[in-house]
């Protein structure tokens, strides 16, 4: 083996070893930090992540990235794709949305529940062909309650409707 080969070999060994030492260093440091200190660091890290760049997102797109369309997502949630479509376009009144819908959606889409809350609280997406108020120029979007959206649905089974509305249906 010539000296160049040997040098390259030694450098490769050294770099791997250095990594190994750094990992041992981290391992030791992790043994010495308290759970509370570590949780605090995670919290700071989380806030840095969420305050970063805003990324375009929608219920439909998020489901699609997981290989689901709104029909499949609706099956999991016991909701019709039409209701989900309204939710995705933020045409449902946020105050009428049940808490467990947020939880189930967050679980299924594997996204932070706060993100879904923030998303549905955005102004409604304007559906194509919507009429505008002549005076103000504002779109004439009428928000619907979650309950009304479910009661209007023909394709929803009684069981599924009862799952969400209980004795109100």
């Amino acid at each position, binding site marked *: 083996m010539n000296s160049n080969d040997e040098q390259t070999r030694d450098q490769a060994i050294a770099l791997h070893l250095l*990594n190994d030492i750094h990992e041992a260093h981290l391992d030791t440091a*992790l043994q010495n930090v308290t759970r509370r200190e570590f949780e605090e660091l995670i919290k700071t890290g989380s806030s840095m*992540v969420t305050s970063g760049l805003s990324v375009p997102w929608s219920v439909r797109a998020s489901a699609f990235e997981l290989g689901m369309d709104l029909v499949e997502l609706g099956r999991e949630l016991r909701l019709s794709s039409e209701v989900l479509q309204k939710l995705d376009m933020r045409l449902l009144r946020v105050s009428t949305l049940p808490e467990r819908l947020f939880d189930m959606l967050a679980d299924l889409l594997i996204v932070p529940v706060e993100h879904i809350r923030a998303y549905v609280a955005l102004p409604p997406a304007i559906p194509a062909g919507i009429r505008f108020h002549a005076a103000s120029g504002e779109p004439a979007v009428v928000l619907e309650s979650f309950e009304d959206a479910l009661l209007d649905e023909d394709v929803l089974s009684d069981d599924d409707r009862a799952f969400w509305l209980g004795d109100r249906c």
Partner: protein
Amino acid sequence: MNDEHAQNTQRSSRTYTRRPEVEEKVRYLLSLRPAQREREVLMLCSSITPGHRYPAGLLEVLVWSVRHGCRRVSKAHDEAAARIYAASGVFLRSKVRKFAYTNVEAERIVEETLTSLMQHLLTDESTISFWECQFLRCLSYRFETISAKSQVRRSLSDAVSIDDENACDISDMAIAVEDIALLRTIMSELSDEERQVLYLKCVEQLPEESSDTSVDTIARRIGKSGRTVRNVLKRIRERYLESENIQ
């Protein structure tokens, strides 16, 4: 084989290669459906926690997960990034204690390094690729750079503007001064057996041992047991951790 993201072809002639354990994990994650993959990443995140042994190469896997493996809006993405931040914070704070900084200055250097790390992690800069292969080394180098900048700033009373353009261009030559000294010591003090074991592990990247007789292993090459190989590696690590006063 590493994917294109693990290569830093623009900045360096050298192609970086993930370590086998990292490459294996990345391949495994890639073989999963997106939902399964993200749940698996969430499981991996919980492996980095106080009181648990740090699994080798995990931060590199999480960097890959944040950059390529998870959706940008997902629990797994956010959790992995937050764990990287937390583990890096722990690592840097233990590192900064070796320097004679005031508490305020030490904390500022750590924060600056972490902010820089997160900026690189959460944006699409190509230079981040290398971090997937040698995360802690890159972090350490970034820390040294910021620390050195701080020293210059202190000596010149803030009146200096330091070109930071190349600070994150971490090439294979960019090893912190402190690391170079350590490496010299390491390489000069290895016995023949240790050199051979390290060569087989680090350069040929052979597994320590295997129950499959068709697999080439370090133990077979040197005619010793897997336990002996592990002991040699452990001995080397312990010796240099002692010399670093880490333990």
